[in-house]
């Protein structure tokens, strides 16, 4: 069969996918203020970015939120996956169903339902409400990643540990956790990225006391072009590339 047609097609689509990203990075080094024309090489927008106190503050808030949301969702997600894999209990289908619904629901549906809950119980919108929301939408992704790892794993090992007198907790700690470690790291990185990228849910459940990066960017780009956003975008791109390569590396290494 002719090879050039599919190859040309693939190349073309990849170029289209990457053009905006490349434009963003190139323009982040643009001296010009208008943002459209090239005015020479400059780092002024990076400088402007780091001199913007509110922006730097939002970056730290976002990183801290992503860090904590990824950690909490990895712990709960891993325990959920272990429970789904090992135990038989009533309502297992309902549990699975709820995780599936969270993953499939449009983000905005999740967002308003959480907003309604937080207002009903009188929770002040801020770090805590953001954390609860982010953990909730990261959870199913961690569960799936860990379950995939567990399903490819020989069940006789935990059984042997049990026969040798280990308690459930000891067995989990000494046998299962090491086995699912790569999945935990991959799940953590996925959660971190999902949290850092989220706009829709955060728009609803954040308050003025805790401003995070996506909302800061959102308020900046709605009105017009802000060259600082190019610089920020380029930094975020490099950051997520590193994270993604890290997670791929962990997954590939664990398969050997």
């Amino acid at each position, binding site marked *: 069969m002719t090879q050039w047609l*599919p*190859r040309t*097609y*693939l190349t073309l*689509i990849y170029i289209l*996918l990457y*053009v*905006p*990203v490349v*434009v*963003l990075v190139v323009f982040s080094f643009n001296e010009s203020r208008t943002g*459209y024309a090239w005015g020479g090489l400059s780092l002024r927008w990076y400088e402007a970015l780091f001199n913007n106190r509110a922006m730097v503050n939002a970056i730290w808030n976002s990183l801290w939120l992503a860090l904590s949301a990824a950690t909490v969702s990895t712990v*709960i997600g891993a*325990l959920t996956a*272990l*429970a789904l894999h090992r*135990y038989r*209990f009533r*309502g297992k289908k309902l*549990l699975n169903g*709820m995780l599936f*619904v*969270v993953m*499939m*629901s*449009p*983000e*905005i*549906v999740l967002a*308003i*339902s959480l*907003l*309604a*809950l937080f*207002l009903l119980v009188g929770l002040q919108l801020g770090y805590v409400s953001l954390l*609860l929301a982010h*953990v*909730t939408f990261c*959870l199913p992704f961690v569960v799936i990643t860990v379950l995939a790892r567990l399903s490819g794993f020989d069940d006789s090992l935990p059984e042997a540990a049990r026969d040798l007198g280990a*308690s*459930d*907790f000891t067995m*989990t700690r000494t046998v299962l956790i090491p086995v699912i470690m790569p999945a935990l790291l991959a799940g953590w990185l996925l959660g971190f990225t999902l949290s850092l*990228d989220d*706009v*829709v849910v955060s*728009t*609803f459940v954040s308050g003025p006391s805790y401003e995070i990066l996506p909302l800061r*960017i*959102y308020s900046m*780009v*709605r009105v017009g072009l802000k060259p600082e*956003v190019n610089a*920020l*975008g380029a930094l975020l*791109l490099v950051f*997520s590339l590193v*994270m*993604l390569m890290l997670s*791929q590396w962990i997954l590939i290494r664990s398969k050997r």
Partner: protein
Amino acid sequence: MRSVMQQPFKTAVLILVWGWLLFLVLAPNLLVVGASVMTRDPVSFLSLPLNLDAYGQLFDPLYLEVFLHSLYMAGMTTLVCLLIGYPFAWALSRVGRQRQLILIFLLIVPFWTNSLVRTYALKLILATNGLLNSALMSVGLIDEPLQLLYTEGAVIIGLVYLLLPFMILPLYSVFEDLKQEILLASHDLGAGRLSTFVHVIVPLTLPGVLAGVMLVLLPAMGLFFVPDILGGSRNLLVGNVIKNQFLDARNWPFGAAASIVLTVTMALLIFAHRLSKQRIGEEGA
């Protein structure tokens, strides 16, 4: 069965997991259903009596128009993603193994990058004095800059750009499973290329198509920041309506009813997806 006392670990895990999901998934969703049948209240957001007014308001011509326009844009987005993604996934599944992994990696890199920032990058390209217009004018294809930004087309381009990987990945996985022998068998039984495509390839890849449609169509109605950045005030999504009702207009029952429409659409799509998978299962058995 051993009792609770003998399995403290199991009990603790189950309580934690159930607690989280019941409190943060089930309860909030029930609250939204509840809110949709209550009455709007300017002070406490919601009040009695119960009624279906919010659902009636969905058919208000003003909103109906917004919903239909949103559905149209989401439909176009899904169609474009499918038209680009189907041959793309097909071609991808024919590439050598090692190269395939690299190509998949390249496909998900943008997906891991902040979607707001990527939408903003499109603005740089589509603006009146942006890169695309400058390029077209410099090669002499157009004399005057085209109005690309703040149009329906810009919103669809933005949605396609953000959602394309979600169409490609499920399609890629069904093309991966499509065995070469089946295609050869079809050929040996005398089917032409078109006939093989219509009667063998399309039905076998249908679950992937439906999974992709599901993953694209729903977000394409909810991602409110895309029209905010690229579409102007005339090209709103259902997501924009829900957001406005909750955060600005403070009409919770109406916002909740609109969100339930999205959820019901999701349920129907999941049902269709299950059905198509079952059919293949039966025929394959």
